[in-house]
C-alpha cells in the first residue's frame, strides 16, 4: 500500500490535506478554491454560515461527491483515486442523523460492523461496547425511530465509530438540538477526541467551535477567509479586554476612577459590571496592560481576579467578513444543496 507521505520534515502529520478544491453546482460555486490542513489528533473547526460550502467540503472528503478541480487527501489517500481505501479510515456523522430509523440501535451498529468486514463476533462485541459507551444499552432493542433527538445523534456517533476511524467528520453535529442535548453531544465528541481521533467539525455555532476545536477555518461563500488557532484568530482581530475583580465590590468605583486618571483608557469604554462585581477594560497594547496593573497596585486595591478576555467568535466573523454569521445574507444565493439532504 502506497501512501502519500505528509511528513517530510517531522512536524505533526497532516491527516487531511486540501488544496485548491473547487465544486460548482450550476452557476453557484459551492467551493471556490479551498485549502485546508488538519493535523493528526486535532480538532479542526470549519465555521461558516449556511451555504458557505461546509457540507460540500465534507461530502467531497467522504467520497460522496467528486470535486471539479483541486486535490484532497485523507490519511494519505486521494479522495478521487483511492475512494475505497479512504472509506476504510473515515467516520461520518451528518447533520441529519444517518441511521436506519426502522432498525433497532443494536442492529444499526451490527449492520455497519458487518459492512466494515468485522466478523460476526467482532461486530456483536463492538456494537455492545459502543452502545454501552454512548449510554444506549437500554434502548438497544428499540427502533431508532423511537429515540429522542439526542439519542439519535449519539447512535449516529456510535455508528461512525464502528470502524475505529482515524479521521472523523462531524457535519453540524448539534444543529437542531436543544442546549442540554447539545452539551451531551459535546461531551461525547470530547471523549472521542481524547481517544486520538482526528476530527473535522463543521458548525454554524461559535460556541461549538470554541468548545471543541483547537484550530479554526472560517469559510464564507466557498472561500476560506481566515484560519489558524482559535486564540490567534481572536487576537488577530484585536479587541482584547481585561476583566478585573476587586476583592471588595465597594472598590469598583474607586478602581474605575483610578484607571480614568491614568488617562490611557477612556472611562467611556470601561464597563462597570456591578452584577459580577467586575470591571471590563479594553486594552490595546501590553504596555497599557502593565500600566493598568501598576495603577491598581499603587492604589493598594486588593484584587480577587484579573483575566484577559478575547472577543467572541461572532465578533470575529463580523470583522472578517463584514457581515454577521447568523444574519440573513440577501446578496448571497443560498445553495439549496448545501444544507438539504439529497
Amino acid at each position: 500500500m502506497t501512501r502519500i507521505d505528509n511528513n517530510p520534515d517531522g512536524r505533526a502529520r497532516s491527516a487531511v490535506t486540501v488544496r485548491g478544491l473547487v465544486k460548482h453546482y450550476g452557476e453557484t460555486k459551492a467551493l471556490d478554491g479551498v485549502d485546508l490542513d488538519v493535523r493528526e489528533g486535532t480538532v479542526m473547526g470549519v465555521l461558516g454560515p449556511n451555504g458557505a460550502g461546509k457540507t460540500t467540503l465534507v461530502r467531497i472528503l467522504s467520497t460522496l461527491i467528486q470535486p471539479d478541480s483541486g486535490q484532497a487527501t485523507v490519511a494519505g489517500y486521494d479522495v478521487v483515486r483511492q475512494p475505497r481505501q479512504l472509506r476504510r479510515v473515515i467516520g461520518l456523522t451528518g447533520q441529519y442523523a444517518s441511521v436506519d430509523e426502522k432498525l433497532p440501535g443494536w442492529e444499526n451498529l451490527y449492520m455497519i460492523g458487518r459492512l466494515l468486514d468485522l466478523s460476526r463476533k467482532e461486530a456483536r462485541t463492538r456494537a455492545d461496547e459502543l452502545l454501552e459507551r454512548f449510554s444506549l444499552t437500554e434502548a438497544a432493542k428499540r427502533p431508532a425511530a423511537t429515540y429522542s433527538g439526542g439519542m439519535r445523534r449519539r447512535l449516529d456517533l456510535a455508528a461512525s465509530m464502528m470502524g475505529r476511524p482515524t479521521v472523523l467528520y462531524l457535519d453540524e453535529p448539534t444543529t437542531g438540538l436543544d442546549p442540554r442535548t447539545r452539551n451531551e453531544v459535546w461531551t461525547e465528541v470530547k471523549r472521542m477526541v481524547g481517544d486520538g481521533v482526528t476530527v473535522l467539525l463543521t458548525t454554524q455555532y461559535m460556541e461549538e467551535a470554541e468548545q471543541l476545536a483547537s484550530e479554526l477555518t472560517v469559510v464564507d461563500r466557498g472561500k476560506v477567509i481566515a484560519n489558524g488557532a482559535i486564540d490567534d484568530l481572536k487576537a488577530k482581530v484585536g479587541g482584547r479586554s481585561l476583566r478585573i475583580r476587586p476583592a471588595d465590590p465597594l472598590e469598583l468605583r474607586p478602581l474605575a476612577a483610578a484607571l480614568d486618571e491614568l488617562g490611557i483608557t477612556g472611562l467611556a469604554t470601561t464597563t462597570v459590571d456591578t452584577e459580577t462585581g467586575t470591571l471590563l477594560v479594553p486594552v490595546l497594547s501590553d504596555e497599557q496592560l502593565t500600566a493598568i496593573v501598576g495603577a491598581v497596585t499603587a492604589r493598594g486595591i486588593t484584587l480577587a481576579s484579573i483575566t484577559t478576555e478575547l472577543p467572541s467568535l461572532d465578533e470575529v466573523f463580523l470583522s472578517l467578513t463584514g457581515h454577521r454569521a447568523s444574519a440573513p445574507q440577501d446578496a448571497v444565493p443560498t445553495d439549496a444543496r448545501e444544507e438539504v439532504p439529497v
Partner: protein
Amino acid sequence: MSAATITTDAVKDVKGDARISPRAHVRHTGALIRRNLLWIRQDPESMFDAVLFPVIFTLLFVYVFGGSIGQSLGGGQEAYVQYVVPGLMAMMGMNMAQGVGTGFNQDFNTGVMDRFRSLPIGRGSVLFAKIAVELMRMLFATVVLMIVGVLVGFDITNWAGLLASVGLSAVFGSALMWVFLTLGVIMKNAQSVQAMGFLVLMPLQFGSSIFAPTQSMPGWLQNFTDYNPLSSLADAARGLMVGGPAAHDVWMTLAWSAGLTAVMAPVAIHKFRTKS
C-alpha cells in the same frame, strides 16, 4: 469528469487492496438483506400487500367478472379461473419491481444511503439486497396466490410449468426493476415513485391479456395489447401452467426483458452513480 490530480508519484497503487472480494460482496449483501428483513419484522404491515393483493385480485376477478368472461371462453367461472390465475401470476414480478424502486428512494431520502456510500462496500450490494428481499416477497405472494387459486378451483396440471412461470415473471420483473430504480433515484419521494408506477402500470396491466382475452377489444387496442409485454408474459404463463402454445410468448417476454435491461440498466446505474 474530475480534474483533480495528484502531484505525488506515490499514488500509483490505485487499486491495491481496495478491491472487494466476492466473499466480502456476499457478506455485505447478507448484512443488507438482514436489514431489509428486519424492516418487515419491525413493520409487518408492509407484508399486507404481498398477502392481500393475490387474495383480493383473485376473488374480485373470479367472482365479479368470472361468470361473464368465462362464457366468452366457452366455459364459465371455472374456465375463467384457469385463465386469470396465470395472468395474476404474471403481475407478481411487477410488484417486485415497484417495491425495489420505492425502497431505494426511501434510502436516499433518509440519509442512510450516504452512510452506505461512505462505507467501503460495493454499491451493487445495496441493490442486490433489495432485489433478494423483493424476490422473497414475490415468492411469498405467489404461494398465497396459488393457495387462493386452488381454493377457488384452479387446477395445477403442470408443476414444472408453474415453476417456469414464476421464473419468467421474476426475470421480467427484474428487467422492469431498472425502470423503477431510475424513477426511485430521480423522483423526490416514495409516494411519487408509487404514483408514477401506478400511472404507467395501470394501462399496461388492463390493456393486456392478463384479465380478459383480447379478441373482443377494438382493433387499435388489440394492436397495443399484442405488443404489450405483459400480454406476452401472461400468455406465456398460461401456456406453461395450463398447457397450450407457450414458446413464442416466452421468447417475446425474454426479448422484452433483455431490451428493457439493455436500455434502462445503464440509465439507472448512471443516475445512481452521479446522484449527489
